[in-house]
């Protein structure tokens, strides 16, 4: 079955695959997670706001992002961000920013919509009395949120947030469509150069599986640990 295949190509390209590709993938995942959770939490607070305009704006944004394919959103930002950057920095002409920053902005903005829904559920799971006691103690909105509601919401939602991050880790492979050199992109370049598609893509699948599956096992263990016993 495996006659005529050359698995040495994997060994030869390991440094390139991991030092270039995997570093890109992991950096993008980590930064987009931090940014996504930050903006997602803000969006969740906006969606739960009693000011109609604010909650409608946030709701519209989240629903828009969630009804579009990620590939289309990647294209949008890839072309849109240079224009926005140009408008802010210079005379309005587009400025190229490269695939990494383009991807980072895309994934932060896109995943924020998904993290928002998780954080919204987290905030809504906190008992109303918690907020009232915060106000009764003389705390303002931001203090109540920051010291009382959000810490509990985060803790409840850690497993779900991390599961979403595993999805984000897998989704970053879609930067292939803007020719970025992430793990898949690096493997695809080697595969096409040496014409070793079967070997490289099988290897990529195995590595993604090992990482995602181990992470999901970790999340499961964490879930038992952080569960608050009531």
């Amino acid at each position, binding site marked *: 079955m495996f006659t005529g295949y050359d698995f040495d190509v994997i060994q030869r390209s390991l440094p390139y695959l991991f030092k270039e590709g995997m570093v890109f993938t992991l950096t993008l995942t980590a930064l987009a997670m931090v940014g996504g959770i930050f903006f997602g939490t803000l969006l969740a607070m906006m969606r739960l706001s009693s000011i109609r305009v604010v909650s409608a704006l946030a709701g519209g944004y989240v629903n828009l992002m969630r009804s*579009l*394919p990620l590939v*289309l959103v990647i*294209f949008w930002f890839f072309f849109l961000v240079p224009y926005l950057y140009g408008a802010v920095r210079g005379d309005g002409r587009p400025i190229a920013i490269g695939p990494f920053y383009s991807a980072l902005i895309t994934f932060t903005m896109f995943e924020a919509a998904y993290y928002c829904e998780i954080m919204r559920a987290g905030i809504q799971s906190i008992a109303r009395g918690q907020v009232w006691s915060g106000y009764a103690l003389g705390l303002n909105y931001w203090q109540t949120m920051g010291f009382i509601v959000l810490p509990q919401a985060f803790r409840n939602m850690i497993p779900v947030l991390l599961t979403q991050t595993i999805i984000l880790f*897998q989704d970053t492979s879609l930067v292939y469509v803007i020719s970025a050199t992430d793990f898949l992109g690096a493997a695809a370049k080697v595969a096409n150069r040496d014409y070793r598609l079967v070997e490289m893509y099988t290897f990529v699948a195995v590595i993604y599986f090992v990482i*995602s*599956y181990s992470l*999901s096992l970790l999340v499961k263990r964490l879930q038992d640990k952080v569960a608050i016993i009531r």
Partner: protein
Amino acid sequence: MQYNWHWKVLLEAEPGGTGTYLQYLIVGLGWTLVTALAAWVIALAVGAVIGTVRTTPLKWLVRLGNLYVEVFRNIPLIVQMFLWFFVVPELLPQAIGDWIKQMPPPWSSYLPAVMCLAIFTSVRVAEQVRAGIMSLPRGQRMAAVANGMTEAQAYRYVVLPQAFRIILPPLTSEFMNIIKNSSVALTIGLLELTGRARAMQEFSFRVFEAFATATVIYLITNLIVVLLMRALEKKVRVPGLIAAQAGGH
């Protein structure tokens, strides 16, 4: 922002000679739907079997089902797309592999795309089916067996009919997902809606007109699917459950 909008481009002829750019994109939506629907049918069938199997007392089948779910859940969709397109035809017997590779243009990427989306989505369907079956009170199955049904009959006449009606709402969102996910098929050369918007941008250099039109088409499609599914959900609601009373929204 300096961008000169030129919406009339939608009515200009696309270089392939099949009509205007707008028609070109709408045909793309057609491919998106044809791909998603075909994959959806397979995903439902496979997912129903795998999900059901995982609730049976047959240990080996459960393990096999778990393995299936973990494998296809932990590999990114685009990588699975490449596996179906580049790797599977090589591993099949040569005659079949060559037949797949030599199919005329849309079909040589259509078939792998449908298979990929079907198997990818079947895992999520299986999870929903399993959750639906687990959510039924144990007594339902016990009562069926007490009435003299075999295990298989209990599934066929008591468990599955209820489970499927319960899981319809979450399945709706999986159907939306399959429509969105079909855009990944552009990486193996299937010209569905996103792929055609990208192609239009390359032919006409009208970046934002192309993507904005595709965006609007996706939003309208979403809206129609949601409305259709809501009507269906109302029809199949199980009377007496909490969800059945929450009508009118």
